[in-house]
């Protein structure tokens, strides 16, 4: 009936150290994780201290390995969808820090000309299809781009990220049924960070092993340690291959944790989770773990890490500079982009 996805332990690649990935790839993955971390830290600072960013702003701190691992074998022409917690996915898909930061600032140089904001990053250039604010609302959309790939007979894959709380909503259910029924090339990645705002998974879902949900749709599935970059890479890579070559969907539950509050304005801990719990999870910081592993395998050394940090720092600084220099949208922009063929 329902097929378990081959898991990392059994896969050939897994038997090789570091999934058989070369140094450049590994180095780049670390770079991407650190880029996300520092970008988000900067966003928080600019939001809280300088009020250059407004609205709801949901950070990806703590979950970096999920996006980086999942997208490592994606092509530029593959499609990616995310929720409102989308900065990390946008950067990894290939969007520049500048266009993302300028969007946060609400500037014309932002990827959406300042009209979308934190929750709605988009780039047609690199096929990042957003940035969506209604919980679960983008899951049917991702099913749709996968449908288009099947319809056209191209071999593009769609990857769709969402939180564990989205699993309870109708759109998830309806989408997974269609994807399995029609064999669509899509990888659903549920980022189970254990909480939807202040609600713990077990207070909202009647089943905790979320990957098991896929059985109800006869869909391949796996759960994976989302703090382990290479495991994340491996499992997703298999799912992507399955989608690309067999046109079959997969549901992956990535177990992760957000180190910060739900949005920038929310506290990191409170009634719903303790400070101790957060601290404990921080021990398994995906960046620290991966850095240590690469050093241990002598792929990089301390200097490389410093290098990365300084390259990241200039990239983030450059993003901020670009955003700062970008003008606010002119008033006419209010009325453009409502229709592509103006009325």
């Amino acid at each position: 009936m329902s097929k378990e996805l081959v898991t990392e332990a059994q896969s050939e690649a897994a038997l090789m150290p570091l999934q058989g990935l070369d140094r450049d790839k590994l180095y780049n993955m670390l770079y991407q994780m650190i880029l996300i971390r520092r970008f988000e830290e900067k966003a928080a600072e600019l939001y809280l201290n300088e009020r250059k960013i407004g609205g709801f702003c949901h950070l990806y701190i703590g979950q970096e390995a999920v996006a980086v691992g999942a997208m490592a074998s994606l092509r530029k022409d593959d499609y990616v969808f995310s929720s409102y917690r989308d900065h990390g996915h946008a950067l990894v898909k290939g969007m520049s820090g500048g266009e993302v930061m300028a969007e946060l600032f609400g500037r014309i140089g932002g990827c959406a000309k300042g009209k979308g904001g934190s929750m709605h990053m988009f780039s047609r250039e690199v096929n990042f299809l957003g940035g969506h604010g209604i919980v679960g609302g983008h899951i049917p959309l991702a099913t749709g781009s996968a449908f288009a790939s099947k319809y056209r007979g191209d071999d593009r894959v769609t990857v769709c990220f969402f939180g564990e709380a989205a699993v309870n909503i109708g759109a998830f259910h309806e989408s997974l049924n269609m994807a399995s029924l029609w064999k669509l090339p899509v990888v659903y990645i549920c980022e189970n960070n254990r909480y939807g705002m202040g609600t713990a998974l077990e207070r909202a879902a009647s089943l905790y092993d979320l990957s098991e949900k896929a059985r109800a749709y006869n869909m391949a599935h796996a759960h994976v340690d989302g703090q382990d970059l290479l495991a994340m890479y491996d499992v997703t890579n298999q799912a992507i291959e399955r989608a690309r070559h067999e046109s079959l969907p997969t549901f992956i539950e990535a177990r992760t944790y957000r180190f910060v509050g739900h949005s920038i304005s929310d506290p990191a801990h409170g009634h719903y989770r303790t400070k101790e719990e957060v601290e404990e999870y921080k021990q398994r910081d995906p960046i620290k773990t991966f850095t240590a592993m690469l050093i241990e395998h002598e792929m990089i050394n301390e200097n490389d890490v410093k290098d990365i940090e300084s390259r990241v720092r200039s990239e983030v600084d450059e993003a901020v500079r670009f955003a700062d220099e970008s003008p606010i949208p002119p008033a006419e922009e209010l009325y453009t982009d409502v229709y592509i063929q103006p009325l």
Partner: protein
Amino acid sequence: MALMQFREALNQAMSEEMERDPNVFLMGEEVGVYNGAYKVSKGMLDRFGPRRVWDTPITELGFCGLGVGAAMVGLRPIIEMMTFNFSVLALDEVLNSAAKMLYMSGGQYNIPMVIRGPGGAAHMLSAQHSQALESWYAHIPGLKVVQPSNPYDAKGLLKTAIRDNDPVIFFESEVMYANKGEVPEEEYLIPIGVGDIKKEGKDITLVARGRIVNVTLEAAEALSKDGIDAEVIDLRTVRPLDEEIIINSVMKTNHAVVVEENWQYASMGSYIVDIIQKRAFDYLDAPIGRVHTEDVPMPYAHNLEKLALPSVDKIVKAVQETLA
């Protein structure tokens, strides 16, 4: 010219556009094997095969959202709602995805998609199956909303809608599907956003759309026997509203009644009244009249249903009051 049913005109419009553009496909409940709940898509599965004509599970939110996603990457879905009553389940994807995508993405992702199906009452279908919901859709910037009243208009408008690069909501009517009308053999398109004067007149302007145009034309006929010469405007498009055609007419007739099969509060009809009083205030000799569905859920009993809906009698009475 061929005489054909409304449903055939729609079928032709879809089929021609599917021949013309390989990115166009039809998806909905029962559109394929069953040939459509109302036989609008009759024969299309046979003609175009299962790659172009998709039967769906009963998951309006899901398949409507799927259509939006497919449209983001360049397909041109025609999503059939078995009836618009069920479209309410999908409204989030229309309001929050289809209508806003272009704006939220700063102009990057447009949604060339048509959502079509019957709206409004048929015969004794009761409260949950008789709703005319155009006003809700018309409320939303980013959408276009079309509502034809006869086979000719239906075909020309649907073809335009399918070629439109923005999302179009297309309202048909169960009770009109069998209506017949002349449709030319040669290809034609009817622009979105442009109304049509279905009957010229000098005494009063009647504004209607969809099925109600035909009721209004009947009323105009009845009024002419009393010597009242009504002009009947078929809006064809609900959003964007063709204000000019209305205002020009009212400037001539100095009187107006707006007719629609919607509830009265916050409806499209009330917006049309607003536009008229704003732009033709000095031309109005009397308050603008309205005829609409009564402010109740639709009852099942035949006698009550008739009382709930706009009717020739109600229109005649509203006109008489306006002209009194």
